[in-house]
């Protein structure tokens, strides 16, 4: 026969002070873990959201990112007429030649960051269909105009609608604000591709092209055709794959956060066991009585495990609430958080603890509870009734 859950609950209440102490330790671990997970998954999300499975990224063979690649006008003109590229209503191919440059931008507080500036043609909005101009309008070619991402807005001097922003050799008028549902395009500034090539004095006008394929089978076919074309030494890859590789830059941070979570979790587990061992010790007589009454070892074991799990659940609930609150507060205090990537670009993310981050923290909290409670529960179950009663 199992012990009723109300027994466990009453026990927690009977030692309210200690229970709260243990639960708060677990809560703190939950807060730490979910904040860090939230930050990194926000970074990762910007990359994952950027890729479109129907888009191909074409770069020079051997380049691992936009910024390092070069592509000639001839190559662009050749690819433009390949079969299998999707077309818009006016029968123009959805292919966007782009130039990526990372100039310095002055931040509001006087620092400087490398920001990804993407030179585009108007067709870019059709190829990157997750990108929307939510305020203002799209830039006009040859007018020294710029459209800035939502995350860039307000972070750098002059990055506001209607203002002028200085980078490269000159000043650019901000005419629109771009949103992309959290994708990394929101950390970018878009300008006219020819003006950018001119400004950066690039010998090649493009760093790569992005194109939309008509059907999924065209994807592999076009990829093979571009990879095998001996004239230009180019390489095509699905956009999702390209951004998945970029997201690997967050790999070290994941290792770091996992290590922190594990260490903090073991520490909290020790604390939880300590409290539980004390509880078992203090309740020796009670456990002896229960055993004498006929409750099985398994019943005792599961009652104590239930207590530990209940403690960690309470800890998780407190911690999750605190984490969400704290992340809001930090977000409000610090604004956006910048990550410099190895490719000389800055990704700006906002701290946001999502449900999946909390799920990770919940797993950790339960693990702490189950492992931390196992030792004490085992000891309680193994108590011999006669000795336990005698001690009392």
């Amino acid at each position, binding site marked *: 026969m199992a012990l009723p859950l109300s027994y466990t609950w009453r026990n927690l209440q009977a030692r309210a002070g*200690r229970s709260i*102490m*243990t639960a*708060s*330790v677990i809560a*703190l*671990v939950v*807060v*730490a873990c979910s*904040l*860090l997970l939230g*930050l990194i998954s926000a970074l990762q999300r910007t990359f994952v959201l950027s890729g479109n499975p129907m888009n191909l990224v074409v770069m020079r063979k*051997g*380049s*691992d990112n936009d*910024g*390092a690649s*070069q592509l000639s006008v001839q190559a662009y003109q050749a690819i433009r007429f390949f079969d299998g590229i999707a077309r818009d209503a006016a029968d123009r191919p959805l292919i966007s030649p782009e130039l990526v*440059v*990372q*100039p*310095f931008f002055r931040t509001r507080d006087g*620092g*400087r*960051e*490398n920001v990804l500036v993407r030179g585009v043609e108007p067709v870019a909005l059709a190829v990157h269909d997750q990108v929307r101009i939510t305020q203002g309008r799209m830039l006009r070619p040859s007018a020294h105009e710029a459209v800035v991402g939502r995350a860039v807005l307000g972070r750098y001097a002059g990055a506001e609608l209607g203002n002028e922003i200085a*980078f*490269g050799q000159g000043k650019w008028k901000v005419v629109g604000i771009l949103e992309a549902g959290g994708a990394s395009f929101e950390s970018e500034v878009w300008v006219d591709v020819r003006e950018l090539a001119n*400004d*950066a*004095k690039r*010998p090649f006008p493009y760093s790569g092209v992005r194109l939309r394929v008509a059907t999924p089978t065209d994807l592999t076919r076009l990829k093979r055709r571009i990879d095998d074309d001996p004239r230009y*030494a180019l390489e095509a890859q699905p956009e999702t794959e390209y951004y998945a590789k970029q997201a*690997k830059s967050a*790999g*070290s*941070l994941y*290792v770091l956060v996992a*290590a*922190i979570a594990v*260490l*903090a979790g*073991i*520490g*909290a587990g*020790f*604390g939880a*066991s*300590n*409290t539980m061992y*004390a509880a078992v010790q203090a309740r020796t007589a009670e456990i002896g009585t229960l055993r004498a009454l006929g409750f099985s070892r398994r019943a005792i074991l599961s009652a104590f495990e239930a207590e530990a799990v209940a403690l960690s659940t309470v800890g998780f609930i407190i911690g999750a609430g605190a984490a969400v609150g704290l992340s809001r507060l*930090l977000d409000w205090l*610090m604004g*956006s*958080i*910048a*990550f*410099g990537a190895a490719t*000389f670009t*800055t990704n700006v993310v906002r701290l946001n603890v999502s449900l999946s981050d909390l799920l990770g923290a919940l797993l950790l909290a339960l693990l702490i509870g189950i492992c931390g409670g196992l030792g004490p529960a085992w000891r309680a179950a193994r108590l011999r009734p006669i000795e336990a009663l005698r001690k009392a």
Partner: protein
Amino acid sequence: MKYLSLVIANLRRNRLRSVLTAGAIMLAVVLVCLLLTLPAGLDAIVENASSNTRISVHNKAGIVYSMPASFVRKVRQVDGVAAAVATTWFGGAYEEAGRVTFPNFAVEVEHIGAVYPDYAIKPEQLADFRRYRDGAIVGRQIMRKYRWKIGDRVTLRSTVWPVDLDFRIVGEIADEDSPYFWMNNEYLDQALKAQGGAGLGITGMIWVRAGDPSRVNSIMRTIDELSRNSEAETACETEKSFFSNMFGSLQGFITIMIIVTALVALCIVFIAANTASMAVRERACEIAVLKAIGFDRRVIFATLLTETAALSIAAGSAGVLLAVAITRALRMFSGWSEALGPLGAFAVSAPVVFQGLALSVLVGLLAGIVPAYAAARRPVVETLHEVF
């Protein structure tokens, strides 16, 4: 001293609890040390890598913008400049890795040694670097990582220039942490011309060594003045400012890390305070008896406090050692996996060791003081009353 055995006996009476408490404190100290190492590591990297006489000259618009290769000759003529070298990002990926895993630059072989006298490159190796067109000088960190030795031949595939180049390693930068790979810029120039291109013609960054640290500021002003109104206006900055700017954009992440560190430290205090108060409460009767047979209040307070503090300090020391061991291990295994790579650069520094130990002392005192004070203050009669 004569009460030492009492303290030890008390710690040993519930060994499991002492071990668990010590374990929790140890892990927390490990965490705090590792987290503190993060910003301290960045600071140390910047500090170690910089000299107070070196100046970085780059295009005002950004480091991905270039300057004409000829500009370095003008820079060399500036009063107070002891040496200047033009360097260009090669972006070479070592074939086995397939990605750019270490910074590699094409440099002017005649000038590089004079700009970096502190890198302790042997004169005969520099002479070889000048003699062999395909020579390369490589930092120890990279030599160790790929098990290269002087005389080896390696191929780098550029992700920026349309060339693959074969190199022979002719020398090394003696610093164990140096990640650089230098090649001859004429070798790159000729390879580009052989492809039918226009050759190098540009430079990404000029490094200048000032003869005298006090003249650094005036040299920076003069160089920026020289390029004013030209096609490529420059911005000079000291080497230290250049490297701190490179890491500057991780600032937000580090701030959050530090907040987390504070949370974890709070966590330790909770655990230790919890346990200490448990230990004292359980011994209420015993303490009352001690007092009844004439032990001084202060002695009781001191022994109880010592008990918590000793446990905490012992655990803290173990934690610091463990943190050092972890960073050592990361360093050793950093070559194994991409994700571990950058973490290998961090080492627990002396100030961090000190902070970790200080934290453990603080935790011991904070956690011990309240229950110890309460136990010492509690009237004997009251406690004994409760017990009997």
